[in-house]
């Protein structure tokens, strides 16, 4: 006996069976509450997986920038390079390095958010964007803690490393975290679509680092070169970081509007990347 093929039932309004249908606003608030819960859970989980069972993990976060600053300060001293604008070489390196590391580590974490958490796609409330946000928050928190420890260490060693404008430095750190997260998420989405683009990660990092001004002050650069260096938004943020950190330095090159433009642009590329990559990611691990 062949049964007649009947049409699929059309979806009816969801009013039956005692399931309350939330209002759009209620739904949004509920969604935000779920997202907050998910982000907190991911942060706690990341603390375990990243710093792990080895407590040395936390120590590394302090040792890496400290070694970098000490080595370069030593080299600069050997070259006879002097401090500028009333700030020590150590302070210039410390301020530049903290902004740079926050950017690059956030970017690195964000671009690998999906690769290292593929198993999370099975949970419908977890999105890759949540992982990126959680990682960026954790990175910012870690870097602020590291910064506090390093300032204390340098202060104890007799250096003048006090922050003139703590709010300004905090804003700069927030900015590099945001830029890192958006740039990193863009890269992460590109890698889902075209894994062969991995080389751009390492290449872009080198170019960004050497033009960021971690190793120099923008006023030390010849004017014709400075034009090119100032295409790098990090050069602006690092200049602004130093302007806020160092009382006697006024950050003559840091342009807030230029940085904001990059923030908006990277947000757009990350959003487009997310839309394109989302479909590729889901179901890709089967």
């Amino acid at each position, binding site marked *: 006996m062949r049964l007649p093929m009947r049409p*699929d039932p059309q979806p009816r309004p969801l009013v039956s069976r005692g399931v309350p249908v939330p209002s759009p606003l209620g739904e949004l608030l509920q969604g935000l509450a779920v997202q907050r*819960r998910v982000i907190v859970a991911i942060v706690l989980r990341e603390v375990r997986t990243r710093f*792990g069972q080895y407590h040395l993990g936390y120590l590394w976060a302090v040792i890496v920038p400290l070694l970098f600053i000490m080595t370069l300060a030593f080299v600069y001293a050997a070259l006879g390079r002097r401090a500028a604008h009333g700030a020590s070489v150590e302070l210039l390196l410390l301020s530049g390095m903290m902004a740079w590391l926050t950017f690059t580590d956030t970017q690195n974490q964000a671009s690998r958010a999906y690769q290292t958490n593929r198993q999370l796609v099975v949970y419908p409330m977890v999105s890759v964007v949540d992982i990126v946000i959680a990682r960026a928050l954790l990175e910012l928190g870690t870097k602020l803690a590291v910064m506090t420890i390093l300032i204390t260490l340098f202060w104890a060693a007799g250096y003048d490393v006090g922050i003139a404008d703590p709010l300004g430095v905090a804003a700069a750190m927030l900015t590099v975290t945001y830029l890192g997260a958006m740039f990193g998420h863009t890269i992460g989405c590109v890698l889902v679509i075209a894994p062969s683009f991995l080389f751009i990660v390492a290449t872009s990092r080198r170019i960004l680092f050497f033009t960021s001004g971690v190793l120099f002050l923008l006023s030390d650069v010849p004017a014709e070169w400075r034009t090119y260096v100032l295409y790098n938004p990090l050069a602006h943020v690092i200049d602004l970081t130093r302007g806020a950190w160092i009382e006697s330095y006024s950050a003559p090159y840091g342009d807030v509007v230029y940085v904001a433009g990059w923030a908006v642009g990277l947000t757009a590329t990350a959003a487009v990347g997310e839309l394109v990559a989302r*479909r590729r990611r889901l179901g890709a691990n089967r």
Partner: protein
Amino acid sequence: MITLDGVSKSYRTANGYRVILNDVSILLPTDRHIGVLGRNGAGKSTLLRMISGEEEPDTGKITRRARVSWPLGFTGGFHPALTARENLRFISRIYNSDIEEVTAFVDDFAELGDYFDMPISTLSSGMRARLAFGLSLAMRFDFYLIDEIVSVGDYWFRAKAQAEFDRIRNESGMLLVSHSPATIRKFCDTGLVLRNGRLVMFDALEDAIDFYLDDD
């Protein structure tokens, strides 16, 4: 209640597109025991993953207004470097379940012993299966998604698992996909047939089975 609204899904294969769902709109009541019959390769597992939210449809929308489980028996949702206990904490948090309650239940149910505090990567596949099954029981989902009935673990675990399975069958709805009418007849009260990109619902289970067997 789960709504599929104009849902289409297909996969690209070497010989063109294989259509799993073609513009399907259907309401799935989450207080029923729904059996989905389909032949091998019809896309039953893909359908299950889409209902769970693990996979997105190409077009259309799936709305879940219930706590829907991940496909039962799926063990890939654990972080390999974290211990079973740490994984349970994380999953309890995202599902807003009581961490202590879930941990106590799964510890007792899965019988991992010392391995409860070992990284997931060191667990045998049987241990992982018991852990995943225990966890999905502890979560007390409204609606369980089951991809064939498979037995996990040794005989003793099977007896215990059977008892727990009967309990969730009384307390929760479920959607069971199978190619076997006997399985569907045993566990379900509503029948769906997945065939040629269409999902056809029958009020009477036997009608669904007849329709499924009539495919030639």
